[in-house]
């Protein structure tokens, strides 16, 4: 990947992270940890990969994105706002009674949201349906779905995995955000779903393990997914929960709570320092 472009994507991802923190802080609740862990991949998808048009969010042949781990809506909203689907200021209305930014994504209300999700396991199935529909009609749009690691404990994920491989949905690409933590603790301690790479391979998927915070690896993985024919692809993305906010990184407690005022300023300062460091790079 071009160095300048890579740096620009890191800048954008950092702004997306700021949007996550601002939204969750304003709401006084929400899910920052798993939102921060997917921010780089979400940035790459919406700024590099996906065929979308903020001026025409319902464009019939657009690429689709389904946030199967719907509780990380703050990241989806932030990246959509950053991409111009709606004003960035609106992020601060997250979860408010008069806001369209529901706690979990609502496709009816928010431009750019392709599927209502939140109940784990449903999104990946819906993405399968979208991919199947495109295949029936001979369309070339691609469908992306973001799964959580804890979400892989839902049986429906495996029903969907079977379905996608059975119908050879090669324009479906799922990303599994392996940040290693779920509400009750480390994923492998709560209910160990590993080895996920071997399980998805056994279900007939092409699996690409990557570092979720390395844009070159992200780019290569999505290119490989697109080049893979006859089977769906899973990008197994090893990430850091809370990435970018020092005190949230790898801390389970930040799965689903908002920072208070002091910690909010600390989070913003952490992200500002990252932004500054990016600008100082030669």
């Amino acid at each position, binding site marked *: 990947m071009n160095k300048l472009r890579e740096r620009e994507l890191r800048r954008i991802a950092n702004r997306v992270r700021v949007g996550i923190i601002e939204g969750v802080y304003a709401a006084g609740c929400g899910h920052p940890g798993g939102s921060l862990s997917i921010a780089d991949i979400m940035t790459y998808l919406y700024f590099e990969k996906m065929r979308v048009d903020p001026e025409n969010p319902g464009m*019939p042949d657009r690429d*689709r994105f*389904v946030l199967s781990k719907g509780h990380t809506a703050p990241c989806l909203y932030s990246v959509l706002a950053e991409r111009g689907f709606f004003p960035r200021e609106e992020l601060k209305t997250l979860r408010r009674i008069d806001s369209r930014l529901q706690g979990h994504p*609502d*496709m*009816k209300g928010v431009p750019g949201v*392709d*599927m*209502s999700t*939140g*109940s784990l*396991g*449903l*999104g990946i*199935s*819906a*993405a*399968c*349906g*979208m*991919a*199947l*529909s*495109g295949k*029936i*009609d001979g369309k070339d749009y691609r469908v992306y779905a973001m799964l959580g690691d804890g979400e892989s404990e839902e*049986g*429906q994920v495996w*029903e*969907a995995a*079977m*379905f996608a491989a*059975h*119908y050879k949905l090669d324009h479906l690409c799922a990303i599994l955000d392996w940040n290693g933590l779920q509400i009750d603790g480390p994923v492998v301690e709560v209910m160990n779903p590993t080895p996920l790479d071997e399980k998805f391979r056994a279900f007939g998927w092409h699996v690409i393990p990557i570092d979720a915070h390395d844009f070159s690896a992200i780019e290569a993985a999505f290119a490989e997914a697109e080049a893979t024919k006859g089977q769906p692809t899973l990008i197994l993305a090893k990430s850091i929960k809370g990435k970018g906010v020092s005190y949230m990184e790898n801390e389970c407690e930040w799965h689903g709570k908002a920072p208070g005022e002091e910690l909010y300023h600390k989070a913003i300062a952490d992200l500002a320092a990252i932004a500054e460091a990016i600008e100082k790079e030669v």
Partner: protein
Amino acid sequence: MSTNLWKFPTDVEPSKKATRESYGAALAELGESYDFVVLDADLAAATKTGVFKKKYPDRFFDCGIAEGNMMAVAAGIAATGKNVFASSFAMFAAGRAFEQVRNAIGYPHLNVKIGATHAGITVGEDGATHQCLEDIALMRTIPGMTVLCPADATEAFACVKAALEHYGPVYMRFGRFAVPDYSAYLQDYRFEIGRGVVYREGSDATIVATGYMVHLAIEAAKILEGEGISAAVVDLHTIKPIDRELLVRMAEQTGAIVTAEEHNVIGGLGAAVCETLAETCPVPVLRVGTEDTFGRSGKVPPLLELYGLTAGHIAEQVRRAIAMKK
């Protein structure tokens, strides 16, 4: 006011057919002029979607025995703007996959048609685990969900077409067991979602029936007629949105209501009628249905007897309801 009056010739024995047969036949016929796909969960032979599959193999997708996934797949297909039917037994469509239907189809108000067959006690020998007596209750609590329960083969066919032409989620309830096709004898029969069919006007009480129970309601009215009791018969094929106008008219006109459904009396047609009339025109309402119980294995006729789903029991409740009138 509905103008469908009972013109059934008494000297003819109506043909018998299960409503699920019409589901398959309607899909196959409508497939000629409408663009839609059909999903099933390894029950195509039983739900009769197999008839469509045979004719349009490229538009039929088996999801295997994974109903939850199937419902959310249907939601995804609908989200791309394509018409889709998802089919299984009522127990698995409404029961197993309730949460997927609620969250993936109902909440985003996606245009998915659910064809649920083998509803009710008339599943017969397969017994309690497969006799769904709760699906009307479950489905009608989902905001924006249309709930249809056709009485016979003719009505079921029309119901599928109406569902296809309606935008929004629809739950269609079909039966396994053959039922007399009375609708075929109705003059100017027209199926309209949300509008009950008045088989027969009356003055002493109204039997409001749905699905399999409609023909038994007609039989009950005949029994009562012999006793000098004038019972109206309404086929309420749409449980939701309920035909409030018709129910109020019949309550005002006859002063007593008996509901009949092949479903638990809790939460189903009877409950919906009670809710409506309590708020508009309170009159005695007695409910015929399964009495908060699970079913069991057996041949259909003795099962219907065992659970009181008979013309005789409906007639008995009509007499009681009339006695309750002030």
